[in-house]
């Protein structure tokens, strides 16, 4: 045993792990730590030229953030997106997965491809199409609604409708990914469970409630977690569709952070936003894991 624990052993451990650890250290831990310190300074374009023009400001960035109505707006928008868009996306994925898993459905593999296509399409291309769909005068959506005698809605320009419009687009774009995972989960449920349930006279709803849902629980936990984390980082949709407008109604935390940091170079302030987002995601994930643990007992 002692021979294995000799110094040569440790040497080769470091030799093999070193590059990976080094890369993670340099590209992940150091920037994270640097950003953490930066969030206590007012590092900006003046400081980039000369470090003398950076001030240590303590918690001032965080305080400024708390006092800033734009931040609360962004936070509200992000939660709106997560709490409405997240469950909606998961529900749509599950429904699509069940339909594609049903033996009654024809052309299953074709539909699987069709539903998955938006996931692999670049968002910019998707955005161009959706901007046309949402166009207040010439858009497909308003055209359809005109048959129902609904007057045209300015989907992306109206402060009330802008966020729902982005949510619908995001759900359409993303549900295919979760759907594939759900299909895999569904195929892992043993068929004999359903057979015995049918013999006992369980209706489809009971089968779904007492067999499918519990058996899918591990998949659902995974999907919910990933979706929530991903949806908190809501960025690309408003970035390409609305730039956060109208009236900041679609400004998300990450978009706000991006604008402050990379558009205006208020790096210190932007780093503070990043850490607030980190804490929020951390808490949300912890709560969720806790709930699921309790639920399974």
């Amino acid at each position, binding site marked *: 045993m002692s021979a294995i624990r000799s110094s040569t052993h440790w040497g080769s451990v470091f030799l093999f792990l070193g590059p990976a650890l*080094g890369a993670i250290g340099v590209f992940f831990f150091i920037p994270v730590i640097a950003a953490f310190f930066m969030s206590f300074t007012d590092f900006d374009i003046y400081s980039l030229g000369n470090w003398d023009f950076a001030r240590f400001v303590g918690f001032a960035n965080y305080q400024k953030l708390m006092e800033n109505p734009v931040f609360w707006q962004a936070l509200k928008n992000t939660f709106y997106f997560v709490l409405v868009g997240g469950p909606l996306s998961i529900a749509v994925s599950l429904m699509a997965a069940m339909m594609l898993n049903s033996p009654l459905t024809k052309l299953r593999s074709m539909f699987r491809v069709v539903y998955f296509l938006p996931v692999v399409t670049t968002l910019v291309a998707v955005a161009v199409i959706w901007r046309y769909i949402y166009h207040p005068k010439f858009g497909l959506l308003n055209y359809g609604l005109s048959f129902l005698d609904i007057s045209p809605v300015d989907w992306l320009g109206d402060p009330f409708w802008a966020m729902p419009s982005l949510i619908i687009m995001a759900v359409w774009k993303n549900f295919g990914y979760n759907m594939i995972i759900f299909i895999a989960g569904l195929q892992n449920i043993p068929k004999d469970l359903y057979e015995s349930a049918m013999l006992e006279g369980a209706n489809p709803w009971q089968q779904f409630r007492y067999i499918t849902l519990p058996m899918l629980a591990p998949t659902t936990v995974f999907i919910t977690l990933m979706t929530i984390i991903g949806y908190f980082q809501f960025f690309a949709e408003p970035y390409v569709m609305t730039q956060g407008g109208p009236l900041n109604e679609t400004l998300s935390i990450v978009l706000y952070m991006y604008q402050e940091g990379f558009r*205006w170079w208020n790096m210190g302030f932007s780093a503070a936003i990043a850490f607030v987002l980190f804490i929020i995601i951390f808490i949300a994930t912890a709560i969720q894991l806790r709930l699921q643990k309790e639920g399974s007992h």
Partner: protein
Amino acid sequence: MKTTLGFALAFFLAFSGCQKKSQPNEIRFWAMGAEGEKVKLVIPEFEKENPGVTVSVQMIPWTAAHEKLVTAVASGTEPDLTQLGNTWIPEFVALGALKNLDSLANQSESATQSKFFEGVWETNVLDKNLYGIPWYVDTRVMFYRKDVFKKAGYDHPPKTWDELRDLCEKIKKLPGNSKNYAIYLPANEWSHFVTFGLQAGSPILKDSDTRGAFSDPEFRRSFTYLMSFLYDSLAPPRFTEVTNVYQAIEQGFFSIYMSGPWNIPEFKKRLPEHLQSEWMTAPLPGPDNQYPGYSLAGGSSLVMFRNSKNPELTWKFVEFLSRKSTQLKFFTVSGDLPAVKEAWQDSVFLADPYLAAFRQQLDHVKSTPKIPEWEQIAFSRIQTFAELATARKLTIDQTLKQLDESVNIILEKRRWYLEKIGKVKP
């Protein structure tokens, strides 16, 4: 073992950085968007005049330009020369990246103050120091429908604010125009609000550009004036309704649009045949009896970096680009308007009716405040508050007061900075 070593090697190579060494006779020039491509057409002449010298152009898309330039400065990998939108100059001066060009320009024949449009030259001067030479200019004038003006009883473009307002009311009253508008003032473009503010004599910012001057009488006057168009349905209140400006103008959704030279070819291309003789450009009206009123002194400058390895050679290239003949050639290949006044005497310009308004306007252009924070103030504050006022979430008084307050928060750092470098006594 081999792969580990290979990986480690690659890792360290990546860090040692493979900085491209510049050749002694090479000028490294960054240019943005279409200019990056077009400038290559004028370079051979320079290289012929200076045997052995090469100009290597790197094209950068506009959307990535700002980030790339800042990172280049931060990491010390800047080129010898770059094109820079003139509102970006203050930021790179604050970074201490740009070379002072005063002595060079004073001794130059082509790249010297008297050759350029005054207002545009001014955008390159910070604290009496010159940091850039204008390359091409950009300003906004009025694009309008002659036939609609005629129907409304105007045989000339409006020369004063009162005339503009009167004309718009008359256009709105034309038969069939109850659902149409007269002018387009999108709230998501800060330029209108700033242009009219400058026209009314507002400095936009005051106290050495450390505080907003938005609630002061001059800006208030211009803002109230512009808002009246939106409130009285003379301008479409929701800018998202207009995704295609050309279509909107064709349909008479509005008839006046303030825009830049890039729209001349677009109007020629996109308006239908029967409207081609019915559109024209005109300088902007002024608030009182001054005509034309001011417009923005936009455009791109050529700036040299302090770390340039070849300052003499680079300056020679700047002088070459500032020559009348080069400016003309560059205009023919790119459509960018010459910054050198003499170039405008060429027959190309005299023959073009659409460019006459720009020539006239360029003698009446003003710079926006020359501070690094300007773009942030314009895009994230003026635009946001203009939107709030347009949507009537705030009154004009509230808008201007809150705009001042939020701009003053941004400028806190600048107040501290000026005090620290001893420019302003607290």
